[in-house]
Structures are given as C-alpha cells and as structure tokens.
C-alpha cells in the first residue's frame, strides 16, 4: 500500500473540525485551581497532573486545591434534582419512560419523541418546555449555574433571574440568559436557531459573541458559532445574504447585499456588523447605521473604523442593545 492509497483518508482527515467544545464548562474547576494555587510555590512541572486519580499530595496547599478540583464536579452532580412533568405522550428521563412527574438528575438526558412533550422548572428562576423530537441534558442544577445541553430539538425558556444564571449549551454556541424568554432549536447537524421574544440573550462561542434582544433571531453553526442577529420579520433576501456572509464565506459581495436590504428595523444587525465587516466596508456599515440612529457624542466614525470596542459598546447602549444596569457610565455616553 503506498501513500496514494490514503488519499481518501487524507481528505476526510482534513475535513475534521479543529475545534470541539467540551460538553460542559470547565472554567469553574480551572478558576478554583488558579485561585488556590500559588504558582511560585508549586514544585516542578514534571510532577503528575493535578487531576490524576493516582496523584499523592505532597504539599498541603496543593492538596486542598486538588480536592476542590476533583470534588467540584461530583458536588454538581449530586445537586438538587429538578421536577419534570410529561405534558404529552411519554418522554424518556434517563433510561426510563416518564409518565406523569419525575425527578431529573444532573447528567441525565430528557428525550421526547414525535408525540411527546415535557416541562420543568429551572430551579426557582424559570421554566422550560421541551418540544417533540428533542434531546436535552441537565449539566448543572447549582443555584448560580443552571446549565442544560440541547443536543437536538426545540425548547422554550422563560427566565426571571438576573443575567448569567441560566445557560443552554448547543453543538454550535452557548445561549446565555440575560433575563428573557426565548425559543431555541437545534437540528441534527448541530445548527441552531434562536428567537428571543422578551429580554435579551447572548450567544457565545469562543471569542465570538452575539447579543439578541427581543424580536430578533440568530442562527448558529458548528465551528462558526453565532451569526449576525436579524429581526424576526427581516426580509428573506436579507436573511439569505447574512447567512452567506456569516457561514459561507460570502465576503464583500454578501455584505453589500446585506447593506442593500437593511432598514431602520435592522439596527441590531448593523451594529454587529460594525465589528464583523472587513475594514474596507466598515465605513459603509457605519454610515448605514448612523443614518437610522446617530451615534452618541463620544462615538466617532474614525474610532469605529479603527475598531474602538468601547465606542461600539457606547453605541450599543444608545441602541438599547444592553440590558438596564449593564450600561456604560453616563460620563462616557454623554462625553
């Protein structure tokens, strides 16, 4: 067998994604580790890894940190169960059919088929309805981290908590509740659609973030993360051009079509494009947005074209893109 015999394998290998999201947020354990460990006090890096089951503590401080790292996930998994009800048909909770009410434990999947639906309270901060043909896992029921994984299907959430207490992970982005009501769908390929009906939701993936206020929608794609939000009643031509720009390398041509079809109801879309447009087209995006909603005094065309993130933030405040209480100071906005 020579090297050419592997050409098909090489093609398949080259198509593998370079990024895979972990099934849960690993940051809490890492944060615990970095906050407890004094790096200067640590012994050589050649020692066994911190989470190794066979690691023997040889420093008291490190032992405390390791215990926290190892026990934290278990504590999450033994947290309070959520009450879940079958609304129609017979959903599955873990390995068992759910008839009537059941207790949903961390790590368990809740699944509905074509004829079943379910509902549950999100601790004390909200409620969720799970539509047919859906698969949802409870990742954390902690009071400061209500976290689900929607592998496929559709769920509707109504949350009345402060921002950043409720998270839904999908194969292509994490939906972060900022106090809201929304519907989130994931297809078999891992692509998602978010429709916010009240409040705000942030969609995050790596360093890419979209903010979706009420009345807006946003698509997500595996590997690419969240696209540019758009009004739920945006014309089909605008949606199609945005999809080409966000996910199909549509580039300048697609962006030109987007700009052509945007109106005063598309300020959220235009604001996101301020940072996503290629430098050569950023001026056109600025002009389009400024025509519908002039920037606040401290925001200049030059600053936006130079990529000044704080100016973009100030304009977002002006556009109502920011939940109340999370805005920049009046000092900057009125400067």
């Amino acid at each position, binding site marked *: 067998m020579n090297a050419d015999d592997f050409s098909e394998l090489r093609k398949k290998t080259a198509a593998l994604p370079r990024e895979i999201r972990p099934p849960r947020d690993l*940051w809490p354990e890492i944060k615990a580790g970095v906050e407890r460990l004094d790096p200067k006090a640590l012994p050589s890096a050649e020692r066994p890894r911190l989470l190794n089951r066979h690691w023997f503590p040889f420093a008291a401080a490190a032992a405390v940190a390791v215990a926290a790292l190892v026990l934290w996930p278990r504590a999450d998994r033994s947290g309070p169960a959520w009450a879940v009800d079958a609304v129609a048909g017979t959903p599955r909770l873990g390995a068992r059919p759910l008839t009537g009410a059941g207790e949903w434990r961390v790590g368990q999947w809740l699944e509905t088929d074509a004829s079943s639906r379910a509902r549950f309270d999100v601790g004390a901060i909200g409620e969720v309805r799970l539509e047919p043909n859906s698969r949802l896992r409870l990742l954390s029921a902690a009071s400061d981290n209500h976290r689900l994984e929607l592998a496929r299907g559709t769920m509707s959430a109504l949350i009345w908590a402060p921002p950043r207490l409720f998270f839904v992970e999908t194969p292509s982005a994490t939906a972060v509740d*900022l106090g809201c009501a929304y519907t989130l769908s994931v297809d078999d390929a891992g692509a998602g659609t978010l429709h916010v009906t009240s409040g705000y939701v942030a969609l995050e993936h790596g*360093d890419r973030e979209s903010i979706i206020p009420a009345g807006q929608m946003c698509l997500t794609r595996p590997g690419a993360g969240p696209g540019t939000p758009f009004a739920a009643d945006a014309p089909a031509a605008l949606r199609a051009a945005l999809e080409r720009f966000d996910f199909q390398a549509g580039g300048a041509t697609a962006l030109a079509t987007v700009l052509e079809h945007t109106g005063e109801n598309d300020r959220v879309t235009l604001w996101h494009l301020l940072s996503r447009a290629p430098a050569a087209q950023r001026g056109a995006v600025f002009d389009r947005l400024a025509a519908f909603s002039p920037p606040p005094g401290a925001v200049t065309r030059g600053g936006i074209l130079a990529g000044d993130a704080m100016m973009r933030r100030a304009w977002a405040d002006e556009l109502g893109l920011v939940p109340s209480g999370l805005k920049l100071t009046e000092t900057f906005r009125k400067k």
Partner: protein
Amino acid sequence: MIAVTHERIPLLTRDIVAPDDESGLIRRAQARDVGAFERLYRAHVPRVYAVCLRLAADPRRAEELTQTAFIQLWRKLPQFRGGSAFTTWLHRLAVNTVLMDFRSTRRRESRVQGAEDPASLETPPPAAPPGLRLDLEQAIARLPSQARLVFVLHDIEGRTHEEIAGLMDLETGTTKAQLHRARQLLQKALQ
C-alpha cells in the same frame, strides 16, 4: 479613562478587547488577572479540548487534561515572551500535558505489571467515546494508543515526524511505522 457601571458586563465583554488585542489579555493574565485569563480560556478551550479528546480518546479524561493544561498555562504564562504565536505555544503545552499523562500512566502500569515488552504497555483500543459521532472520529478513537497519538499529531495537527519523535521519545522510524499502521487500520475501519 472609561469606566463601566458593572464589573462583569455580559454583553460583548469579549468585544471590548478585540481579538487582535490578545496580547493585552496575555499581559493582564501574566499579571495574575483571572478575568483576563478566563477570556483566554474561553477563546482557546475548543482548540485545546479537541486535541486532548483526540489524543486521549476519552471525553472524561479529555476534560481533566484540558483543565490541567489551562492550570499549567496559568503557571507558565509569565514565561511566555511572545517569541511564538500564543496559540502555537498553548497547543504545544496541551500536547505535552497529554503526553506527560500517557508517560506517567505507562510508568505506573509498568511498575504494577513489571512488564518488559513495550508492546504490552500499549493500552488496548478503547470503545468509541459517545461524544464522537463521526465514523472517522470513532475509528481514530479505537486506534491503539501509540498509533493514535502519532496519527493525530501528524495527520490532524500537522506535526513533523521529527517533532513527534522528540515529543514521544521515539525514533522517527518508529513514528513513521506507527503512522502507516494507523492509516492502514483507519482505511480498513472505514471500508
């Protein structure tokens, strides 16, 4: 100076420091700013987890290795001088974390088993992890450990045989043989 009214602004927090200002985040994290370090974590964890998952072929272990890699990053970040791209540096650190784990596991098993035949120390092909749905991903996960490490590092991560030999403490002839073996096994598995 611009002030904000909320210490942790969820909206577009990452947008305030543009991607091309990663060097600023690194400097802040080097100064022990945990918030900046979290931003680096969120930006890079999919890449680090991917390499850990493919090398370890075990989602749970990959989570642990990813955590260990980032804790190592926190410790070693003050040593980063920007001589290489941060992504490349972090990637190398993650690979080293996984390989160190393999070596320590092998040493432990060697002590327990008293085995002398290196082939007997190779872990048996694991069951395909449930998180990997693609045929090819499953087939890679089922490769014998040494063949899998070489295949992932060479054909997916783009390392040279010389680099892999150095990382794994092997001869390049061995890494080439393992790569060929891995490709043959994958070819067969995918037919």
